[in-house]
Each structure stands twice: as C-alpha cells, then as structure tokens.
C-alpha cells in the first residue's frame, strides 16, 4: 500500500473555544493532520511496532483516560501513576491538543467532538503499512503484549476467533497473553493454531506432576527474529498473576509468576549462546512492575510493556533498559526505531502514534473484516436500549460511572445489600446524550465467566477482603501489585488512607449508611472474581450473566443518569491526579 498525501485527512482548527495560548509553534495546537501523526525521525535499520491491550476493539471507540490514579506515596507522580494535568506536565504536552485528548481525561467531551473516535484495526493497519512501506517490510516487526482477544461481544461470541483473524490481518509477529487464557487452555491452543504469530512465555510452567513436561515451559520462552540485518531475541512474559486474578479452572495445571530468576537465565542464554544483537522483553507485567524488572534483571535492551493501559509518550530508561507502553483499546501504535551495529544497540527513537480515526484513512480490507465478523450479531448488538445523560466511563482508582451503572443494575435485580464489580481497566466510554447499545454493555462486561452470584458474606470478611484488594492496588512494591483498580462497590462507603500499612488502610466502613457489623452476614452480589467462594448460602436461582442484567436494567430505565460522586473518601491525597510527592495544584 502506498499512501500519499491525499489519503490523509486533516482537521483544521474549526473552533476558537480552546485555550491555546503559549504555543511555541506557529501552528495552532488543535490544527493537526495525519502527516503530523506520522512524523518521525528514522533511526537505524530496525523498527519494532508495539501494540498492547486492544481488548478486542476492532472498531474505533471513545476511551477516556483516568481522572483518579492514586498509588502508594513512593509511586505517585511516576510513570504509570500519572493522570490529568500531572500527566501533561510530566510529558510536556499542551492542553487541548490531540495528544492531550488521547492521553488524559481533560476536556474529554468537547475534544471528543472535535477529534472523534480512537483506534480500530482498519486505521491501525493504515499506519502499520505506511511504516512497513517506509522502512521495508523485512525491517519491521509487529509485537503484541496481549489482552487482545477479550473485551467485546464479537470476541466473546466467536470465542476469540474474530480477533485472531484481525491479528493475522495486521500481521502480528509475536505475542504474549493474559485474558487470552480465560477462553480456557484447549481453546487457547485451537486459536494459536489459527494465529500466524509466535506465542511465547518464559513464565508459564507445567505444574501437573503427572505430566511428561512437569516443570517445563508450556510455550517457547523466546523467539529470535531477523530484522534490518540484526538478530533480535524476544523473550515472552505473560501476565504473572493470571491464576490469582482470573479463575484457576481456565489454566489448571499451569503455573505463572514473575520468575525473574529464569528470565535472567534466558537473557544470558540469548546474549551468550544465541549471540543476539538486541534483547527485547515482550511483557504483560504492567508498567510499574516492568520498571522493577529493569532494576532486577540485567541485559534487557527494551521492555515492551502492557497490562496497565498507560499511554507512555516518552520511554523510561532504568539501568540501561528502556521501557515503553502503548496505552490500550487500539488507541496507539508504538514505533521504536533501533540503531544496531556490531552486536549492540547504539541509538533508538520512539513515538506513541495516536490512531485518530478521523485523521487516518481506514484500510478497506479492514473495514470488510470488521463487517464480516459483526454481521451475524449486528441486529442484536446495535439495538438501542437507552440514553445516558452524562459521560459513562470506566477507569479511575475507586469509582467510575459505567461501573456505578452496573452496580445499580445488579442491586435492582438481585435485591442485595452490596454489589461488587471488578476494577478492570478495559471497557468503553459513552459521551453525554449518547445512545446506549447492547454492544456497549458487552464492551464493559464481555468475559467468559460473567455470572453474577448472590450469597452471604460476614461483615468481618468484607472488611478483610477490602484490605486485601487495597493491598493489591496500593502495595508500595510494584512486584506485589496485580495492576488493576479497587473493586467498585455499591451499598458501601469508606475512607481510605493509602499510605497506611497493609491491613490498616480502610476506615469508617459503612454499609448502606450504617457502620459495618463485623458479625452480621450481608447479602452480596458479585461478578468477575471468585468472591462467591468465600461466601455461603449461594442463591442458585438468581445466577445470571452480568450483561443480561445490565441490558434489562437499561431497557427498563431508558434514561440513565449516574452521579459522578465517588463512594470512597481518600484521606491522604487532595486530588485524583497528584504530582510527585503527592502535590495537588
């Protein structure tokens, strides 16, 4: 494909309502073309293109970044824990630009109207092919950090097949996984047969003592690829905590974990025995965990990270290892050009390319592919079931409006005192006044274990659970975090002191306005986790998939109006997006 100037669209500065003072360029910040998007200083002969956390979004969508992203005080304001103004300031991005729209929640609604939707495989393809053309096909590798197969109705209904087809279309060369595994081991193996990419993981080990390959790696730990005349060793790191974050039954007999000791072993093997020129870790560890990996493991040139959905406009270099991460939901393609000579990395250049679907022409074959997979479900998924008054979004550390809607729907149906919704970071964003489609409900809930369970849980257990989850999110050591946000609760309010030590963070815990009774059993509904295993008196007649519960509720209500007010009061930070040192403006 040869793309010329005419194929690129252009957004002129149509409106004068944005404050764009203080720009250094003569061009207005909101006047941007696809050429600006593609603008890049070529370096060396090798290009690694990186995608992560597509979450099965074949079509463009709106995706609003968090307005609250809190962590332990030592991590706040560092890459991986930046949002809003603190993000713009850290990366030197001007407000109201395309970058600001893609990277932060600020002015999201008005910028969404101006810049339009993000991502989509047909638009990603145009960018990827343009780079392949520019650099030469054999000099470019497309690497996928996983969380690709799950997240939409079309993925769930085709058990991942639609997405594998899209990966083959994009030309993914190597991938690792996380949510992929929630289709179950057998299905994963079937899909990998269809996938024209290497699936690698050094940290998935056969854990079945009766198996012939007990204690051996399940997948090849690494792949060696030739590109631009260099030998690139790519080690795979799938999500280390798959078996605790997702139901164990999907990966029975496989053991995960960070396994930094064997990782070091593979780095050394690639360098000393395989004589590669460059070592890359393709990872689903999460951005902050991978910064720790760079501190602990020697000899990795680049870590292409994923899992935590951070847009990382500028690479982070720690101990000679450079870490990049390319956001989520198909919003970006990361471009890493590497100059390699005499067996060493000499230089590199990186850009996070925003897939602004109004500026980049869609590839026709991609549109056909999307249409092919959606066609059988079009009628069901495009059904309008309601309208939202305010923005419905997912993300934020404690509370987001789409989760509040899900919690409300569950409470309405299950008549429970408390509802739990997991703190996943994938979903969608609907703008004020938007129709709510069945497809949107799936975008928030499409998992292979979607049942809502209603059961009883003792007050003391609830309190302990919340502390446990808080420690997964706020542990000062990234290696002990699992990379999600706090579970979303309806019917519960609490204060939290994030900097407090494990088990002591939550205070003033109230259930429906009353102080929690540690000895009483509460009726709890939960989905997307394993809480039901901790409870008793499961209401078997009430079990129902969460997407059905939410769809029926929205249909019943018609107009959806969700408050922006969080049920959680943070005691030790005054804003949602503090700078380093916890400073709020």
């Amino acid at each position, binding site marked *: 494909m040869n793309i010329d100037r005419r194929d690129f669209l252009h957004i002129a500065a149509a409106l004068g309502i944005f404050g764009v003072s203080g720009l250094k360029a003569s061009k207005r910040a909101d006047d941007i073309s696809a050429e600006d998007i593609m603008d890049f200083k070529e370096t060396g002969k090798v290009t690694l293109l990186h995608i992560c956390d597509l979450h099965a979004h074949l079509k463009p969508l709106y995706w609003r970044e968090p307005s609250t992203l809190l962590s332990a005080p030592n991590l706040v304001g560092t890459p991986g824990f930046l949002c809003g103004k603190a993000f713009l300031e850290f990366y030197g991005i001007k407000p109201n630009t395309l970058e600001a729209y893609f990277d932060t929640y600020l002015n999201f609604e008005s910028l969404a109207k101006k810049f339009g939707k993000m991502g989509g495989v047909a638009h990603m393809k145009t960018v990827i092919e343009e780079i392949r053309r520019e650099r030469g096909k054999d000099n470019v590798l497309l690497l996928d950090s996983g969380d690709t197969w799950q997240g939409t109705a079309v993925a769930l209904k085709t058990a991942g097949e639609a997405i594998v087809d899209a990966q083959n279309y994009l030309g993914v060369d190597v991938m690792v996984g996380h949510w992929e595994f929630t289709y179950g081991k057998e299905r994963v193996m079937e899909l990998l047969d269809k996938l024209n990419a290497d699936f690698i993981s050094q940290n998935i080990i056969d854990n079945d003592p009766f198996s012939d390959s007990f204690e051996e790696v399940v997948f090849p730990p690494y792949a060696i690829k030739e590109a631009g005349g260099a030998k690139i060793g790519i080690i795979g790191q799938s999500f280390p905590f798959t078996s*605790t974050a997702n139901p164990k039954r999907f990966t029975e007999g496989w053991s995960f974990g960070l396994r930094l000791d064997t990782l070091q072993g593979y780095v050394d093997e690639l360098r000393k025995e395989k004589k590669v020129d460059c070592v890359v870790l393709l990872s689903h560890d999460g951005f902050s965990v991978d910064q720790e990996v760079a501190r602990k493991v020697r000899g990795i040139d680049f870590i292409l990270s994923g899992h935590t959905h951070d847009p990382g406009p500028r690479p982070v270099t720690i101990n000679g290892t450079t870490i990049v991460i390319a956001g989520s939901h198909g919003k970006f393609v990361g471009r890493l050009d590497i100059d390699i000579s005499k067996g060493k990395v000499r230089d590199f250049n990186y850009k996070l390319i925003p897939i602004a679907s109004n500026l980049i022409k869609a590839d026709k074959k991609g549109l056909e592919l999307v249409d092919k997979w959606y066609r059988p479900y079009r009628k069901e998924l495009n059904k309008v079931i309601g309208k939202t008054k305010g923005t419905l979004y997912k993300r934020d550390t404690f509370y987001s409006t789409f989760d509040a809607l899900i919690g409300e729907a569950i409470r309405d149906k299950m008549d429970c005192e408390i509802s739990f919704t997991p703190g996943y970071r994938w979903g969608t964003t609907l703008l004020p006044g938007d129709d709510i489609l069945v497809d949107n409900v799936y975008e928030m809930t499409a998992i292979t274990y979607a049942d809502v369970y209603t059961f009883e849980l003792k007050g003391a257990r609830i309190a302990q659970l919340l502390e446990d989850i808080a420690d997964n999110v706020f*542990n000062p050591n990234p290696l002990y975090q699992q990379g*999600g946000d706090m579970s979303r609760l309806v019917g519960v309010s609490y204060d939290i002191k994030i900097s407090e030590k494990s088990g002591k963070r939550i205070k003033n815990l109230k259930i429906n306005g009353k102080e929690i009774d540690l000895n009483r059993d509460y009726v709890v509904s939960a989905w997307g*986790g394993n*809480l039901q295993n901790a409870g008793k008196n499961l209401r078997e007649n009430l079990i129902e998939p969460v997407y059905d519960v939410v769809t029926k509720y929205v249909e019943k209500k018609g107009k959806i109006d969700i408050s922006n007010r969080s049920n959680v009061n943070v005691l030790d930070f005054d804003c949602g997006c503090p700078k380093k040192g916890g400073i709020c403006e």
Partner: protein
Amino acid sequence: MRRRAFLKGIGAIGAVALLDIKVLAKDTKPKGKNAITFKKALEVITNGKGAKTSDKVKLIVPEIAENGAVVPVKVNVEEPIENVKSIHILATKNSNARCADVFLTPRNGRAYFATRIKLGQSQDVVAVAVLKDGSAIMASRPVKVTIGGCG
C-alpha cells in the same frame, strides 16, 4: 508440627489420640503446644546463635502465591556441599513456623532443596543454612497470599 514429635505424641496417649486427631482435623488452626514461633524455631535451629543474612542463600519463591496451600520453595546454598550441614525452611507467621528441615551429607552433591509449603497468610518465608562450623546464614522473601481479583 514436626513429624517425630507428632508420632511420639500418639504413642504416649495411645487410643485416645485417634479421637484427638479427628478433633484436630476439624479445627483449621493448631492450638497450644503445636505452635512453634519463628523466633523459637530459629533459636533451636541455630543453637541460639541466630543466622546472618547472606547472598549465598538463594531463596526462590513466588511474589504472590497462586495457591497458599502449595507454595513452591527452592533453596540453593552457594557453598561447597561439604560445608553445609542442613537447610531449613521457615514461615514466619504460620502457627508452626518450621516447615522443613533437611540434613545433608556430601553425597547429596550440592546444597539444593525444593519443596512446597502451606502458608496460612501473607508472610516472610525464610531459608536457613547451618554450616559446618556451626554458624548459620539465611535469606528471607515476602510471599503474598491473596484472594486476588483484578483484571
């Protein structure tokens, strides 16, 4: 409970002990005499001398346990086998902190031991190696036991 102490207990009490075992099995937490604190265990193992933290003890445990009931632990002591008398694995917050005692001879080839231990809650796992001269070296790593649950 150490295996030897357990067997001795049954022998002494005789038939009544069977009943006790049933009661014990029902109860998840061993009580009273079964409790061996970390401090006490370390004291016994090192003959009251304590152990010094050393890079020579390589302790490999998962950061977050996949299943608290079977947590894999690997210990490699980077010392000639002739120099290592025993390897001990301890869990600081288990009711019985003493998980495994392994006594080595030169015929073991190297001072390496791997097993699985049960952890009642998040805690530090400690590996102690007692050396030929009676001194002890150790390494400690935290392991988190959690219900899990993010995406």
